[in-house]
């Protein structure tokens, strides 16, 4: 064997670095495709069925056949949803204050289950200036951390357009917060709302970070996560959530999607509704009309 032959053979046998990396790349693509396909199947399964996150068939059957013992209420009969008509919101923040009262949320401006944002486009500007009740100027205006009001800072400004948008937990069909909870303290109930079992919450705040809508906060005094649950204790008794109850202009609409004549069904049917951040894939259950391009 000549030296040249030997070299040739060595080249044949040993994998060159270039080939190795090429193969590695192909392998990664194949593996990725496999995983992707697998998760796509898994996703389509969860989206297709009514199963909640990590709920097997047996548990789903249990939820249907033996619903939680709530007097005069069966969670199989309802599918709650909320609508927000931003064109009717006057930014009075009564919803927020009533919510804090009803649900014993901490009373300072930075803890809340629902809130209202003010979007203002000044003349010639293409970007909105956004503020909420947590803005120091708004707090200063009321003179108290426990009263909530928007100040009149744009009185003399040249405003092109301005509007309020009420926000709250979207009670998503695929809630990120439930997915990350390490203890099973937060979960999706069968009738819609995402609930928190405060006795099981360890206050790790993963859910606060996971929520793409910033709808969760941390209740310092209780040491657990805090979020809107559409006043689950009220809706199971036939009452409206308290923010809907106090809204003086009817900017919030609530009801049962199983009932085709409920306010929310009419709202969704008769209007072109939108949801916030549809690209996140969370499938929110709060439907908006009158959203502007900059509202996220």
């Amino acid at each position: 064997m000549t030296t040249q032959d030997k070299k040739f053979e060595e080249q044949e046998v040993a994998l060159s670095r270039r080939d190795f990396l090429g193969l590695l790349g192909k392998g990664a693509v194949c593996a990725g495709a496999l995983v992707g396909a697998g998760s796509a199947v898994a996703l389509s399964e969860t989206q297709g069925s009514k199963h909640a996150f990590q709920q097997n068939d047996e548990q789903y059957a249990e939820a249907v056949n033996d619903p939680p013992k709530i007097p005069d209420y069966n969670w199989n009969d309802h599918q709650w949803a909320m609508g927000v008509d931003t064109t009717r919101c006057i930014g009075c923040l009564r919803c927020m204050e009533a919510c804090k009262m009803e649900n014993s949320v901490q009373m300072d401006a930075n803890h809340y289950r629902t809130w209202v944002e003010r979007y203002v486009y000044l003349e010639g500007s293409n970007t909105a200036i956004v503020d909420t009740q947590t803005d120091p100027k708004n707090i200063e205006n009321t003179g108290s951390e426990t009263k909530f009001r928007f100040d009149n800072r744009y009185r003399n400004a040249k405003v092109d357009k301005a509007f309020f948008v009420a926000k709250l937990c979207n009670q998503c069909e695929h809630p990120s917060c439930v997915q990350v909870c390490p203890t099973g303290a937060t979960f999706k109930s069968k009738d819609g709302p995402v609930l928190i079992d405060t006795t099981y919450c360890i206050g790790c705040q993963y859910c606060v970070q996971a929520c793409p809508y910033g709808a969760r906060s941390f209740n310092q005094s209780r040491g657990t996560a805090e979020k809107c649950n559409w006043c689950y204790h009220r809706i199971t008794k036939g009452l409206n959530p308290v923010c809907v109850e106090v809204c003086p202009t009817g900017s919030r609409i609530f009801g049962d999607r199983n009932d085709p004549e409920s306010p929310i069904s009419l709202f969704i049917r008769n209007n072109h509704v939108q949801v916030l951040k549809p690209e996140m894939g969370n499938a929110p259950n709060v439907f908006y009309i009158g959203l502007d391009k900059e509202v996220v």
Partner: protein
Amino acid sequence: MPKHIVRLLGLVTVIAIVVFSAKHFLTPDSFYQYGHFRGNAVAEIASKVPKLDGSASCEQCHKAVYAEWTAGIHRKATRNNAIQGVVYKSGPGCEVCHTGPAGNHPSKEAMPLSIEDRVTTITHKHMDHPANVPSRKLLLSPEDMRSVCLNCHEKLEARPIFQRQIEVASHSGEEFCTKCHNPHSPRIIYASLPQVRRGDPQAGKAVAAVCSGCHGEAGMSTSPTFPNLAGQHADFLVDALKSFKSGVRKNDMMSPMAAGLNEADIRNVAAYFSRFSCSVTGGDKAKALLGKAKAANCAACHSAGGLYGSGAPGVSGIPTWPNLAGQNAEYLSNTLKSFQDGSRNHPVMTSIAKNLSDADIDNLSAYYASMKCK
């Protein structure tokens, strides 16, 4: 098998037994009932007692106020308001302004108390929240009420136009909303305004003797620079005399006059002059025509129809606001000028007068002087 492996396996087994038995005993029965959460939690969350009860629960005891609210614009604001196929709920209910959960309201048994006791009981009961909720007053003071009204009715750029909004400075200045509006039924219904204590015109006659030198025996003044008092609203005259007395208004003649009058004198003399019927003093007709065009601004307050309707021009619908019809043109124009130069001040009138030219003032004065006053 080597000893150390046996020990290791043993240790692992023990740990496994401890972990699994701990999981078995510590996991609540309902944990995997419906999924990866405690099934009983659903019913527990649902069993919380609602705190806000809705306006209907207030009606049980507060029937009169509830009826007032039901008849008023606050109730009607959005009632049966079908927009884009959706029937919106009714306007602001009790708990929107009286922010305080009715769920903590004292029971009926606890209610038969004196009014003072009742007030403190209500406010104290309403402080009965979990510690992190500060106290809220159920009964609102005028100052509170102002901020409560402005929560929804202050003019903000972002507020939709269907909402009734006010520029505070020009609408009411420092006045409290409740001076003119009943918050339960805020649209001003003139007939329902509370009657102020009426004076006795007979007793007022004695007091009026001093006034007649300038304001005339029957309230028609002796000089065009002095105002006619005949037919003027008694409530306005009382307000005017009181503000001279307290120094809010100053006038070389009137201040010492008013200083010598007591409360009863003021009421009586006001009642005395308001009973006379006035006669038209007249004004320049050409100017009056020009003034009529400008008077639309004044009509909101100084006409019988008030803010929401048309009525006899110059006869104010609210008894604490002056009638202008039949007043002396010269007095009217002097008054507007005194608002302009700041020698007289009023939250509404000062800003309105400052937007008028001298010609406007002349024309308006002529217009109101020529109007029929009753």
